[in-house]
Structures are given as structure tokens and as C-alpha cells.
């Protein structure tokens, strides 16, 4: 097989991996701080895509679509945290049921509002077309996604390790009770982090709109992959979300190319292997 084929598939896998990273980073952050396994995260991704579509069809602006969708979803996330999850702190089963319930509600609502046909978001004007990379052409938008994902990763790193609010979040993850006794408003942090996680998932949904499309069922599909990412990378680890996202993106892409009938196997087999060898994931805490 020609080298070009490998390169193109690798770039496809990496760009898809960046979308998974955006999703998994929020999933992982929310779990690390609040111990909530947020199943509604898939909805945030899907609704982000649909909101983005709705806005771009009316305004024609990609940037406006991204910002509106992300902030709108962040607000939905804040409402869910404040009015539903707040009451169920540390009650795993009720939390799972509530977030699972919202996943179904949003899924049905989306089908009612936007119908069952897959839709594709138009690319922003600046990134349409392809770029010649040596002997082959590659879509600029996918390259942009890779760069964008890396930029978000750097931003998240800085937020986590270089800011006071990041230190407060880490302190609350380490020892929530002592953090409160030191005057940190942990309950406010919960809301902010949940809203921010929803924002990132929506970002994945809109940014992915032009390459993977927006369609019914994308919420469940991405959620499943998101879980694989955090299991492989380690819950609560930013580094784990990035490497896990890239790994799953590549496995998914190459799996679909080589063994289309075994596509899920190529993802879940490595996951099972990692779970068996390192239950806390590649970068997770013990």
C-alpha cells in the first residue's frame, strides 16, 4: 500500500482524535472533580452540532455559529448541574439514571426538531479546499482541526497548571472537604466545571460538523468512544484525554479501513487489554 494512503488515513485518524479529545477532556474533568459519569455529554456534542447548523444557516458565519452553540450548551449544562445533579451529589446510580435520561430526552428532541436525515455543516470559507502535501492533497479544514485541537490542549494545560482557578480545581479534586475548609467555593467550581465541560463537548460537535456530519445517533456513538478514550487515557487526566483521543481516533479510522466488519472490535480489544493491565488507564491516578 502506498505511503500516501497511510499518511492520509493517519491524518484522518488524528483529526477525528482531536474531536474525541474535546469530548473526553470535559468528561474526564467532570468525573475528576465531581465523581459524576456524565452520560448527557453525548447530547452536548450532538446539540452543539445542531445548534451550530441552525445558526450558520441563518447568519452564514462559522465563528458566530461556534460561539453561540458552545455558550448555549454551556448554559444547558449549568442548568442540569444546578437543578438536577446538585441534589444527587455522590449518589452514583441516581446520577447515572438522570444523565442517561437526559441523553434520551435530548436525542428524541433533536430528531423531532431537526429530523432524521444526516446533515453536514458547511466549512468556514477560510478553510475550504485542499493543501498540497508533497505528493497528495489534503483538506485544509482537517489540518485546521488538528491545529485547533492542539491549541485547545495547550489552553487547558495552562488553565489547569498555570492559573489560580486551576489550582483550586486541583485542590478540590485532591481533597474536596479540606478545599471547602480553606474557603474555596467548591459548589461554584462544580457548576463552572460542568458548564465548561459541556462547552468543550459542544465545541467538538460544531467543529466536527463539516467532517463527520450531524446525525441522529451521533450522541450515543461519540459517548461510547469518549468512554473508551477516558478508560484508555485515565479518568481525570488531561494528558490521558489527549493521547487516548488520538489513539482511539487512529484505531477507529484504521479499523474501519482494514476490518470494516470488525470496526468496534479494533477499539474495544485494546481497551479491554489496558483495563486488564492498568485499570486506572495510561495516565490515570492510582
Amino acid at each position, binding site marked *: 500500500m502506498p505511503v500516501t494512503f497511510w499518511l492520509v488515513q493517519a491524518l484522518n485518524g488524528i483529526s477525528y482524535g482531536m474531536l474525541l479529545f474535546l469530548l473526553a477532556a470535559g468528561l474526564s474533568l467532570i468525573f475528576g472533580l465531581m465523581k459524576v459519569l456524565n452520560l448527557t455529554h453525548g447530547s452536548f456534542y450532538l446539540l452543539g452540532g445542531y445548534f451550530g447548523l441552525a445558526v450558520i444557516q441563518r447568519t452564514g458565519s462559522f465563528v458566530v455559529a461556534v460561539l453561540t452553540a458552545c455558550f448555549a450548551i454551556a448554559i444547558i449544562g449549568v442548568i442540569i448541574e444546578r437543578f438536577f445533579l446538585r441534589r444527587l451529589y455522590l449518589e452514583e446510580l441516581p446520577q447515572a439514571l438522570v444523565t442517561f435520561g437526559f441523553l434520551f430526552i435530548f436525542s428524541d428532541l433533536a430528531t423531532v426538531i431537526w429530523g432524521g436525515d444526516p446533515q453536514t455543516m458547511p466549512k468556514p470559507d477560510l478553510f475550504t479546499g485542499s493543501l498540497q502535501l508533497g505528493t497528495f492533497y489534503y483538506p485544509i479544514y482537517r489540518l485546521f482541526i488538528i491545529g485547533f485541537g492542539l491549541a485547545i490542549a495547550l489552553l487547558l494545560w495552562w488553565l489547569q497548571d498555570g492559573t*489560580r482557578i486551576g*489550582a483550586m480545581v*486541583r485542590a478540590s479534586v*485532591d481533597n474536596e*472537604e*479540606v478545599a471547602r*475548609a*480553606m*474557603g474555596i*467555593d467548591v459548589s461554584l467550581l462544580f457548576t463552572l466545571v460542568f458548564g465548561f465541560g459541556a462547552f468543550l463537548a459542544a465545541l467538538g460537535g460544531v467543529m466536527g460538523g463539516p467532517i463527520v456530519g450531524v446525525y441522529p445517533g451521533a450522541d450515543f456513538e461519540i459517548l461510547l468512544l469518549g468512554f473508551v478514550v477516558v478508560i484508555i487515557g485515565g479518568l481525570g487526566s488531561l494528558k490521558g484525554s489527549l493521547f487516548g483521543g488520538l489513539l482511539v481516533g487512529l484505531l477507529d479510522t484504521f479499523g474501519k479501513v482494514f476490518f470494516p466488519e470488525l470496526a468496534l472490535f479494533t477499539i474495544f480489544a485494546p481497551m479491554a487489554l489496558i483495563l486488564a493491565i492498568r485499570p486506572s488507564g495510561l495516565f490515570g491516578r492510582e
Partner: protein
Amino acid sequence: MLSVQDIHTYYRDSYILQGVSLEVRPGQVVGLLGRNGAGKTTLARSVMGLTPPRRGRILFKNVDITRAPAHRIARMGIGLVPQGRQVFKSLTVKEHLEVTTRGEGGWTYDRIVELFPNLRERLRSFAGTLSGGEQQMLAAGRALAGNPTLIIMDEPTEGLAPLMVRELGRALRSLKRAGTSVLLIEQQLAFALRHADVIFIMSKGQIVHRCAPAELAADADIKSRYLGV
């Protein structure tokens, strides 16, 4: 300053504090002694808002804080040095002092590292890599960074080398000079006797004795009955 009035606190279904009253005056160091399981830490947690009492009242600066959330109680000026230090292992020493920095009152970053010179050497180290003594200094420094007017220290000498205990004593005296009130929960009788202005003794969830340090030092009966010495 702090007035605990007949509080009853439960931990799940266990009835731990059975009507505890206690007073800390401005600038006073109050020693709280008692055997393991007497309820000392539960008292600290009740005051801090981590395990609020079911009955009774807690006033701080004449404000009722009985059911206030912990972070608000901290911001009103109560600092906690928790039992077993409980430093944040993914934060550096410097970050510990930054996340709690709050309020007016002379405990600036510079003064805290001046009080605990060991910390100055380790500013960029993660708290988990510090020695037990250094972690204790950090736990105290972290509480001070919030500029508390009352500081609750829960067994600060536990597991410390004698040199570190002396260091801690020096810090405690300097807190006292600065006019900070201290509720000192201790197992080490000698340390409490040296630093406290007044001693309360707890047993089975109640305050059973209140006296001056000198009286306790001379009272072999109380010492053997409640402290096992």
C-alpha cells in the same frame, strides 16, 4: 470570638457530640485535650461546617454560623489545620499559599515563608514530596494565608520529630503575639500545657473538665482519669 453552645453532632447514626459548650476569647489559646474518640475532631468539623450539629448553636464574632457552608465560615476568618495535615498533593507549596490567600490582616505570602523558612526552600515542590514536618508547616501556612482571626489546629504535633515540634511551638507563639486566637486540639499533654491559656478536657462527647494549665499539670487524678497519663 467563638462560642459553641450546647451542640449535638451526629456522624451518620452515631451520636458523637452530646451537648458541648466551649468559648474561645480573642487572642486566647484554648487547649482541647482528650483520648482518641472523645469527639475532638468532630468538634473541629462542627465549627468548620463540615459536620454541622443537629442541635445547639455556634457563634463566631456574634454571627450564627451553625449551618453556614464551610467555605463561608473559612472566609469569615476561621482557619483549619486538619488532622493528618491533608495537604493537596497535586499542588505546589506556592500554590497552597495562593489558593487560600484572602482578606486583610498581615499574613502575606512573605510573612508566611518567613515564619516557616523550610517552606521557602521548597516553593516549587509538590506537597506530596515534602517530609511530614514540612507538610505540617505547609498545612499551617495554608491556613494562615486566609488571614484567620481564629485558627483551629487538630493534633499538629502528631508524628513530628522533636525539632519540628519546637519549630511549631515557635510559630504558635508568634501567632499569639499577632493576636490570633487558637483552638489547639492535642494529644501531647506537654505541648498543650506549654502553649494554652486555658484547657478543656473532652470525654465521650462531652466537656468534662475546664481548668488552667498549671492546675492540670498538678492534678494527677484528672490526668489519669481522662488522659491516661
